[in-house]
């Protein structure tokens, strides 16, 4: 609930920049529909907070080495779940206010979100088994 109110505040900031030239989705064809890059605060509102499906939010940075390992690993596992859960990637330099709002201090930080609420979280790299358990808990619970 607190996050939703915080996001209302965010929406009053000038946000909507031009859409990235390469579009919103990325990854292999299998991952194409289940993984997307968050553009700004209102995009986050639409596709994460208002998502009917649970969403895994991957806060990452261009300058972060471990992020480059965790990202693809997580994407692969999300793709295997065939749409049961979505993955939102947030570049913390492009979306600093959002990252600050969700109290991201180190990267990678991954949030599990359901109905606009944060239900789980981890910081740093995890192996495939740990990630599978994390995702299972998100869908199952």
């Amino acid at each position, binding site marked *: 609930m607190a996050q939703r109110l915080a996001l209302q505040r965010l929406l009053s900031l000038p946000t909507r920049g031009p859409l990235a030239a390469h579009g919103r989705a990325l990854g292999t064809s299998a991952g194409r529909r289940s993984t997307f890059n968050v553009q700004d605060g209102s995009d986050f509102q639409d596709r994460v907070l208002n998502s009917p499906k649970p969403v895994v939010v991957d806060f990452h*940075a*261009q*300058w972060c080495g471990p992020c480059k390992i965790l990202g693809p690993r997580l994407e692969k596992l999300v793709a295997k779940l065939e749409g049961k859960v979505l993955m939102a990637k947030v570049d*913390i330099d492009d979306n*600093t206010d959002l990252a*600050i709002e969700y109290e991201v*201090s180190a990267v990678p930080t991954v949030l599990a979100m359901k109905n606009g609420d944060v239900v789980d979280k981890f910081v740093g790299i995890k192996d495939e088994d740990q990630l599978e358990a994390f995702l299972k808990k998100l869908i199952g619970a």
Partner: protein
Amino acid sequence: GKNEYDLLVIGGGSGGLACAKEAAQFGRKVAVLDYVEPSPPGTTWGLGGTCVNVGCIPKKLMHQAALLGSALKDAQHYGWNISQPVHHTWSVMAQSVQNYVKSLNWGHRVQLQEKKVKYFNIKGSFSDPHTVRGLTKAGKETVVTADNIVIATGGRPKYPMHVAGALEYGITSDDLFWLKESPGKTLTPFVFNVSLECAGFLTGIGLDTTVMMRSVPLRGFDQASHISKENQICFTTQQQMASLVTEHMESYGTKFLKRCFPTKVEKLKDNRLQVTWKNADLGTEETDSFNTVLWAVGRAPDIKTLNLETVGVKTNSETGKIIVDASEATSVPHIYAVGDITEGRPELTPTAIAAGKLLAQRLFGRSSELMDYDNVPTTVFTPLEYGCVGLSEEAAVQRHGSDNIEVYHAYYKPLEFTVAERDATQCYMKMVCLREREQRILGLHFIGPNAGEVIQGFALGIKCGATYPQMMKTVGIHPTCAEEVTKLHITKRSGLDATVTGC
């Protein structure tokens, strides 16, 4: 009406951030403004100031890259099978360094958030002594009012405006650390610490590098140096130390064009730069082409857009820096300044941080402790590093008279250089002491590997008033370079040979 903040800090660098975070510790409402005006070629960076983005941090990392290159050359003598010559790829180093700097930008942002300091990415200017306004990137005007304001906007590299083409075709340290591609064959006029350090690591990673100097090394720095005579930082007017450092660089491949100054820079068809210069000794005009011209002609205080005249903050007419008293107060009540922007202070991160913290403690913490600018240790990270603390030999002579000081000195050879067959001709140290009574140590100067690490500990001794007899009673750690300090016994006065003897 009432001001919105207890403290507003303009400038998110070493001094500004330290002051803001300290003030927030006292439960005060604090805001920080930070804004980076892009350099002429368009380089820009994040929160953290000069040190983090275009100073100490990237400089030291690239210096390390160059040192590793030397280590690889030495390694063969120690048994490693490394095929020579070893090659360096600029883009790999630059990417790693730039990524680390960006992680620091983020770290600072998080720290401000955690300490509940409000952050605005705007370029502020005064409208009255308690009001600063600026535009956000989105063009929205923001007005901030505060009971107390600290100016900590630092400085930016100067361009030699009298040299045709300097601005259009040259870069500065603001740009060097953010280059994605190698600077290639580089010319750097003139000789300040920055240019020596940069020329040093550029040579170290294998680039064709030339330093152009108008006169004696570091003399230009001293004349342009805005450090008052009383607070003479150890490395200014240190002719002897400067000569040794540059001699070493020369023997390691940096080219030096002495007694020369550039007159114009032009762009060639293949995008290389043609530089023309006058040779003052020969009275001739010479020319050569380079990929990069890196200007290092000093730094100017960043005050242009602050609108200081409106509020009456006095600046030094020659340097443009803000005049402050011992409590960092400007000529306007409730307006203070710390860091590189202030007149007569060292342009160093640790002093800016300490001054910023102490200022916050005096404003909000009922402290009365002033910043002590005496005996500030520092190091120039040239290939052979020069570290020092206390007075230079020249300053000591000026203050006490040459009859009242004793200078102990020695050349030495680091053990690690022996097997590697490295030349240690410029490895040297000197200690300046008072001659009478307890023979208090006034200054210590050290040229050699890890000079910063060596000098740091001795800085404590000097702060505590260490004397020559106490130094002689201090047992050295063996085998190190630092131990040689505890063994200094040959005086300059004696005229005896100070070169290395055996172990």
